[in-house]
């Protein structure tokens, strides 16, 4: 009970109420919306989830990772590979995927933090590891090489082996997103979370007041990697195929970062708001693109939208929205 109280903390009642209503709507969504909009919601929740995972490392601990696809890819490939070759169900396989991703995260983290790489240099290190792994998987036959790994699509819904349609995966990604949200909230209101914020603001000053900087950064990257790996597992079993070219690509790493950066780094609601904005824009531009019939026009609008957001709302959409809604700074 006190855990729940800690989670709720001093949140204003109207926020809790809104969240409650939102959750109820999301739970009922498959019954309320058609297949197309369900898939849009799934995409939105995916970005919200994976954005929150990334936000832990960047928004909370302040380390820019542009190679997060590494963890998603590892999680997906390991779990899918175990299922494909040995019939090991994903609920067990995910532990292996998460473990491998966590190890990868600790290697990247240790090398980066121990060698005092910051900012751009750290980001480049993360890119290098992700690219290196991409090429490695291109040549790893167990994982299907560059030709890809394909999971058999079953007609019947099978929760144990995560075979099934959109509804199953909708609830899974919803559960993951809600879980991540609660986890982030709990982390922020803990000593570890406060230490992360201090490190993000000024690591030297943090160390002077006793914050064990290296240890905290390592924990951040390991948690972030582990959570991202789960997204990879979900992805693999939902789309039923994996290619090194996409699973470990810079494109995937970048798309993981967009929702939190646009929504608002380091805030609780930022990645979620960002995911809504991004998916919304994506849908709007797809429709527009279909009307205009120019190749790449959707992406051009997308690029323009990103430009506008970074120029006029560099801190993200959520902080601005929160002020408009009259919310206190603290609750972000």
């Amino acid at each position: 009970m006190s855990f729940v109280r800690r989670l709720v903390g001093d949140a204003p009642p109207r926020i809790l109420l809104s969240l409650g209503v939102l959750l109820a709507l999301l739970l009922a969504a498959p019954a309320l919306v058609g297949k197309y909009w369900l898939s849009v919601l799934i995409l939105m929740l995916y970005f919200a989830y994976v954005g929150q995972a990334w936000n832990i490392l960047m928004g909370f601990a302040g380390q820019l990772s542009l190679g997060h696809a590494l963890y998603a890819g590892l999680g997906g490939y390991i779990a899918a590979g175990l299922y494909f070759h040995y019939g090991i169900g994903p609920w067990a396989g995910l532990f292996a995927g998460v473990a491998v991703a966590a190890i990868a995260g600790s290697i990247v983290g240790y090398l980066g933090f121990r060698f005092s790489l910051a900012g751009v240099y750290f980001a480049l290190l993360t890119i290098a590891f992700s690219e290196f792994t991409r090429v490695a998987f291109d040549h790893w036959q167990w994982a299907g090489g560059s030709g890809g790994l394909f999971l058999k699509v079953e007609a019947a819904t099978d929760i144990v082996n995560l075979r099934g349609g959109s509804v199953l995966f909708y609830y899974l990604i919803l559960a993951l997103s809600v879980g991540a949200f609660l986890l982030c909230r709990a982390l922020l209101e803990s000593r570890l979370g406060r230490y992360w914020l201090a490190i993000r603001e000024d690591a030297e000053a943090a160390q002077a007041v006793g914050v064990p900087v290296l240890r905290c950064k390592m924990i951040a990257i390991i948690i972030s990697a582990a959570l991202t790996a789960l997204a990879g597992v979900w992805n693999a079993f939902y789309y039923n195929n994996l290619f090194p070219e996409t699973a470990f690509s810079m494109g995937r790493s970048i798309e993981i970062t967009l929702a939190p950066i646009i929504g608002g780094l380091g805030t609780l609601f930022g990645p979620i708001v960002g995911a809504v904005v991004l998916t919304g824009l994506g849908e709007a531009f797809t429709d527009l693109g279909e009307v205009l019939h120019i190749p790449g026009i959707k992406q051009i609008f997308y690029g323009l939208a990103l430009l506008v957001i970074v120029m006029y709302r560099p801190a993200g959409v959520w902080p601005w929205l929160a002020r408009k809604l009259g919310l206190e700074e603290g609750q972000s």
Partner: protein
Amino acid sequence: MSGARLDLDGVGKHFRGLRAVHDVSFTVPAGAIHALIGPNGAGKTTIFNMIAGVFAPDSGAVQLDGRTISGLRPDRICDAGVGRTFQLVKPFKGLSVLENVTVGALHRKAHLAEAREAATAILSGLGLHDRRHQLAESLTLPDRKRLEVARALATEPKLLLLDEVMAGLRPTEVDVMVAFLRELNQRTGLTILLIEHVMRAVMALAAEVVVVSYGEKIAQGTPQEISRHQAVLDVYLGEQEAS
């Protein structure tokens, strides 16, 4: 809190051939307030950085209550009971005043609520209570200095290192800070070592003063003795008739 005794024994540091600090030794007894003075570039902050663990001395040792702390990481040294402020203040800008100090308090209090309580109490002592929800970024310089001291105090140190905490403060503000530090020292016995240029504060607070120049200790004594010491005058005024 009570105070710890600080011993520097033959401490030295060089940076790529430049000898920043050479063979500096002094002791600050538990519960005392001492000052470290000297012209700019004399090596005072380097000495602080060695005590606080930012880097290890190349020679000599630093001991706190007899235990060697030189070479430890800054957060371990904070564990041992050393708190420090920075010459150019380093607040957690994106966090509120209260949250800033809470980070310090979390060093000794495991729970966030307790830490916040302890932080609030310290803020009251330094006159920052009514600004506790303001973002640190929006504070004036004197308030930032107070915040820096509050945050260091929240870690419950036994030795407090203050690096030019009076710089930029008006004389009345200096007096307030001096009164606060004196009261703190008398009440808790906290050992304090100050780097200072503001002589008003040095005279009012320090029982003893260590003077460094070009990385070496050139004099040590009471403020009165130091103000008449020939070598000190030479260093501050140039080699001319003492005024």
